[in-house]
């Protein structure tokens, strides 16, 4: 069995899945890509909106999520941190 993901790992998975789709991503796709239950995803998306990491754009009846500059910067910092952890064995 794999190691349980931390809160930060889940946030990174969500942001990465959004970042990979430049034209925006549907919530159901975030659910699959980040491997989350619907309710769980909703809570995380609310938190990420509050932190200005992501924005929602509605096209027709469908909502698409986009990553903001702040979200990109956060992802960058986390990648640096992971690299730091791996190198220094923390």
């Amino acid at each position, binding site marked *: 069995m794999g190691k349980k993901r931390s809160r*930060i790992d889940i946030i990174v998975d969500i942001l*990465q899945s959004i970042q990979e789709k430049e034209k925006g991503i549907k919530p159901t796709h975030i659910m699959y890509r980040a491997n989350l239950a619907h309710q769980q995803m909703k809570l995380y998306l609310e938190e990420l909106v509050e932190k200005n990491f992501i924005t929602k754009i509605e096209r027709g009846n469908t909502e698409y999520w986009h990553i903001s500059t702040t979200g990109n910067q956060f992802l960058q910092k986390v990648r640096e941190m992971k*690299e730091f*952890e791996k190198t220094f064995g*923390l």
Partner: protein
Amino acid sequence: MIRLVYSPPWFYGKDILIDIVSVVALLLIGFFAMRYYSLSDKNKNHLVFSISFFMLALSFLFKIATNFTLYYMDTETRKIGPYILSYHELEASSLPFYWGSILSRLLMLLGLYVLYCIYTKQEKSTVVLVTSLLLVTVYYGISVYHLFHLTSFVILALITYHYYTSYKTTKRVLTKALAYSFGIISISQLVFVFMNLLPTMYVAAEIIQLLGYLGLLGTFIMVLIHGKETKQN
């Protein structure tokens, strides 16, 4: 009589510059580790890691302050006929120098031990025992200076060994660079042991130490660059 100055006079100030480079490297890494602590859902290892690096930086700051005072503050100036003569007069028994050296060495050994503890889980009783032995080392290390440098060498060598075995497992080039940097810093401590025999040994040790800390700084910069380039797994 306690000897506090080992540097040859022509090297005065240059060793301070070398120590400043070490402080910059240590503070930078400590600062980033502290930033990562808040980013990582409070991973305790980041906090302890940054504390150990801040302790090491503070140790160098005490060393710089002590050396600066010894080299520059006690210059006696006398006028003899038409000539003005300046020379150093070292009051080695003065209390501030004594405490500066004590604090510098204490923070260095404790900082290294805290770093070592991150990688090898220690029983509380072992921590108490080792800490008290380090205190004894610092106390006697003022008069028997080899003691301090040999103890630093042993702890640094153990940290180097940890990074090297970690590299063997992960095959990460940056961990290898880290092991080499710490290895070089360890060697510098070994060279410091012989500084009483030959003043140039002090110069050699300082230069080796500079290479080690530059390696550490370079490795850290590479971590930041690599972190920007790579996507998380």
